[in-house]
């Protein structure tokens, strides 16, 4: 039923894109004969360029998808600014959406035109970071978080970030050596906005109080895995995607928990540049990217961050790890990162450097 509906909508959209009613009656052979080509701007190897997906999408719609890549968000912005008309779909982190919108580079999206949008989790689909004047400027696509990882069987009472300074776990804590993450955790513990905390002194004190527990600071997934496997610590802040890999690939005994204060989330969106000349085709591609059929294959064969589409997450096999890590009830607890102005980034870094100097003393 769903697929029938979506295919009809696909065809309706495509026909309007080609400016003719000829293709209103469906038939993929005819669709294939007519070629439209769209260009996607994304990180390399991040979903949109999966070979199986491009083939399935072209077979179903006759739209060919080309790619251009960026290696940094600043590069993405430069490419959008300097090549108007070159791109039809662009990946934008939700922290950047409003900035890109303010530059007039992306269009508002009519979610009603995307059949699969009905299954998007509301807290992500309608997140304030994506909205300007009540209109969404991107389709929430993938998300993940930095939350709490504890050793299974050894730490059973982890419900709060306050466990980071619990004397019971002296010398058993590892911290991610990243100022934005640590200030964020301090903000969660002191009930402040992670993106713009007013009381940095309280955060500094909260982080300093963790000193007796801190054993080490990690900066890469590999380092985390090695130290955890060697029993160097039992509690840490950790990335959701990395937690899934640690369990699946390295069989490490860890529980991934979203504490009651919340976790630090990130959300990637797909948006349509205002200079695109093939917007209808672009929306069809975005609709396919949030399709459960695409997500399940991508996630089970290559591994992927969590989908924003509830139906897609439910369609994963029952024993898939994602069910344990990305729980729908945690979504409302997530605090998403926003873009930081330079002076605030520096202030966060100073807090973290001061705390680290205190740890080392």
């Amino acid at each position, binding site marked *: 039923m769903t697929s029938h509906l979506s295919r009809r909508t696909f065809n309706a959209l495509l026909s309007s894109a080609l400016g003719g009613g000829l293709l209103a009656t469906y038939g993929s052979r005819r669709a294939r004969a007519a070629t439209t080509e769209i260009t996607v701007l994304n990180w390399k190897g991040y979903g949109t360029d999966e070979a199986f997906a491009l083939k399935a999408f072209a077979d179903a719609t006759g739209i060919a998808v080309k790619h251009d890549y960026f290696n940094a968000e600043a590069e993405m912005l430069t490419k959008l600014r300097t090549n108007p008309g070159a791109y039809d779909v662009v990946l934008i982190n939700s922290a950047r959406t409003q900035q890109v919108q303010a530059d007039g580079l992306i269009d508002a999206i009519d979610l009603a035109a995307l059949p699969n949008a009905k299954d998007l989790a509301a807290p992500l689909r309608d997140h304030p970071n994506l909205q300007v004047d009540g209109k969404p400027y991107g389709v929430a696509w993938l998300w993940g978080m930095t939350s709490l990882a504890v050793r299974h069987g050894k730490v059973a009472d982890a419900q709060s970030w306050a466990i980071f300074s619990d004397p019971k776990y002296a010398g058993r804590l590892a911290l991610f050596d990243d100022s934005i993450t640590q200030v964020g955790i301090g903000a969660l513990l002191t009930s402040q906005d992670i993106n713009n905390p007013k009381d940095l002194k309280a955060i500094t004190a909260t982080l300093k109080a963790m000193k007796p527990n801190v054993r080490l600071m990690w900066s890469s997934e590999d380092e985390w895995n090695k130290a955890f496997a060697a029993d160097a610590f039992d509690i840490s802040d950790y990335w959701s995607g990395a937690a899934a890999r640690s369990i699946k690939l390295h069989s490490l005994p860890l529980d991934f928990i979203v504490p009651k204060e919340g976790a630090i989330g990130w959300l990637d969106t797909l948006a349509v540049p205002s200079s695109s000349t093939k917007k209808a085709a672009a929306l069809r591609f975005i609709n396919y990217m949030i399709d459960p059929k695409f997500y399940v294959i991508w996630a089970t064969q290559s591994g992927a961050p969590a989908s924003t589409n509830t139906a897609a997450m439910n369609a994963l096999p029952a024993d898939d790890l994602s069910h344990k890590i990305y729980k729908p009830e945690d979504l409302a607890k997530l605090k998403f990162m926003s873009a930081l102005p330079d002076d605030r980034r520096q202030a966060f870094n100073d807090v973290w450097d001061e705390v680290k100097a205190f*740890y080392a003393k």
Partner: protein
Amino acid sequence: MARRDWTTAALLAPAYGWLALAVFLPLGAMLFFSFLKAAPFGTRPLQFTFDNYLAFVRRPYLIDVAWTSIQIGLWTTGLCALVGLPAAIALARATRGRSQQVLFLLIVLPFWTNGLVRVFSWTMVLREGGVLDYALHLVAPSAPAVALLYSFPAIIIGLVHAYLPYMILTCYLSAAAIDDAYIEAARSLGARTPMIFAKIVLPLSLPGLISGAILIFVPVIGSFMEPRILGGRVGVTMGTMIEDQFVQAFNWPLGAALSFTMLAVVLIIFGVSSRALSARFGAQ
């Protein structure tokens, strides 16, 4: 005469050209950055400030960090001298031929492995239940657990391992150049071995010892990989602080200013210590 000058200049030109390009150009750029308010990327206008050099005043915790770095530098250099000088003397004066070649190979061997690999292999040796712990408990089962990883000694061990070859090689050059006749003369005058070492071998090896110390002290003060991976909580040094400014805060000017401040501190230390050394040994 003039012709020979030109030849010398032509022979030196590639080396000095390369030095100018590879050393002074990036250093000059960093010195320039250190007086800016923000790194000059994109369309931001240049704003000059001296503020970055007040970092130690504005951020008093940096003084603790700098002192930790200097301690790491002193310990590492001292231990390298303590181990490296006898090794170099033995290598230069007591071994010949094939055994000398084999020893040289063993000393240079650490250079052939990637630094990161070396540091990670130390984590396997030093951790609780690691190679060292295991070996100790084979010999003495009742000994307490040895867990050196994530501590100050672990940082020093990693750094001494990485930098010892510099000390041995520079001391070897000095020690090998000592004329046997001096030692024979001293012996014929009745000097015992400790006296020969203190009056002849040590002073004549001093140039190697000093250049080794400089070669080691400077990079160790700025090291960030070994402290970060082996030091755990205590592994916070000027090197890691400067790295944070570049990688996390994107504040290149502050990172550059911290580097140059440390460079100044190092130069002062060298100035004072070389004066003290020359006063001591120059008088003899």
